[in-house]
């Protein structure tokens, strides 16, 4: 039962920064994972120093994808764009604190994919950074 640690279930059932899109937003991006029906819409506001000031996301999906979005959203606040750029898959998995099979990895990575695509236009990022 290693995947469903108490904090994962807690974030899954009580997602932080969950709510309607921020307006205006400096980052505004949505994507989905049609296999699962997972969907995520993320908006972010930055301060003058390009630090994340506010995050809001909404969407639906499995506990792993929701908890991942919730934890990532909390983590983003106060970080600079440049820090977010260096935030990678491993960092997110450390945050979640669980081991994931390739299938479930996609669930966890949707939030990061939306962040990267929204912030840097990396529309083709597959979450599979190891491949060239």
């Amino acid at each position, binding site marked *: 039962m290693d995947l*469903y640690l108490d904090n994962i279930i807690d974030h899954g059932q009580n997602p932080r920064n969950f709510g309607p899109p921020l307006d205006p937003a400096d980052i505004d991006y949505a994507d989905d994972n049609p296999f699962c029906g997972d969907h995520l819409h993320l908006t972010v506001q930055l301060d003058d120093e390009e630090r994340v000031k506010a995050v809001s996301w909404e969407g639906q999906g499995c506990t792993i994808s929701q908890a991942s979005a919730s934890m990532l959203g909390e983590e983003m606040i106060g970080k600079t764009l440049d820090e977010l750029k260096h935030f990678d898959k491993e960092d997110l998995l450390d945050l979640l604190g669980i081991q994931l099979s390739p299938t*479930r990895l996609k669930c966890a990575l949707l939030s990061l994919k939306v962040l990267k695509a929204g912030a840097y236009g990396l529309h083709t990022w597959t979450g599979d950074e190891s491949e060239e």
Partner: protein
Amino acid sequence: MTDHNTYPFDIARIRADFPILDQEAHPGKRLVFLDSAASSQKPRQVIDAMAAYYTRDHANVHRGIHVLSERATDAYEGAREKIRAFVNARSHREIVFTRNTTESVNLVAGSWGRANLGPGDVVVLSAMEHHSNIVPWQILAAERGFTIRYIPVTGTGELDLDAYAGFLRDDPVKLVSVLHVSNVLGTVNPVTEMIRDAHAAGALFMIDGAQSVPHLAVDVQALDVDFLAFSSHKMAGPTGLGVLYGKRAILEAMPPYMGGGEMIRRVTLEGSQWNDLPHKFEAGTPAIAEAVGLGAAVDYLGALGMDNVLAHERIIVEYAMDRLAEVPGLTIYGPDTDRRNGVTTFTLKDIHAHDVAQLLDAEGVAIRAGHHCAMPLHQHLGVPATARASFYVYNTKADVDALVEAIYNARKLFRF
């Protein structure tokens, strides 16, 4: 009437034939395999038949003049004959080996469809089809300009036969292609009547038998069906092999699907002549060992008796439907027990199906979660994903009990 308490065959002996079942999925957790609709397990008779083939008899088939090639050809064509008998085709020439159900459908679309369908024509599918019986037709429709109509699914998870009758009455329908048993709802569609009506309207009929041929006796002559597609790997046979049955006269008139060796009679730099059936549709070196394996699988199922296979599954499905109905917060999709077969698909309150599957896996219970390659059907059901338990000859009521217990555990973790 099925007797709930007696399996039609010795289940312990059958389970002993499937070595994979005898393991722990996780330490202390017995493997409870409830994912046979995705792909069934293989008895050692099938595994051994393929190993024996490679260990004693392998060579390329057809036209080899040495003892191994003759044995390989006999094994390959002998398997075709077994499969012919299994679905009661008139001639071995009507049994074409493909990779899987999906390729069988693509073959009909790419050969018969490309030659026969054009603007104004209508192909009838249903809204409960597997992607393999939707996407090939969509791709071809974009190329050839015909129209696809989908028979709607009713509130009880069955085909809307009035709508079907309307299509046949009002549209220039050339082909109906529908699944026999739904891989999501378990619905057993009334194909006998549907085929009769399609023929009366002048249309051909294709059955996607991926979920029926493994589970119940399918007689192509009794059904008078024009095409039947199915997969070896769902019926105790190996991966890498599918079957397309087609009526001989129809197959004879069809252009080839792929070009290459085996499928030609003569090749010059200017052009080619096609080989006889079924070889016209089997380009290149075929899946020889896989055919041998499916032959062994068909022997195995035949020895059990397909009526017994069906009776056994009805016992398990009925028991599963009854036990799952008790679980608070659980929704079952599809028709009543007496009109379904093989699978029970459900959702558990607002827990995503992936979470359900993952939690069940932790208890050793293997089910499938997702859209089961039937996204349009899930759109109709209004859920992005469902959890599916599916059953085969080796499953027992104890497996169902394990499933239900694991579901209760999941509920506890999610505190409802």
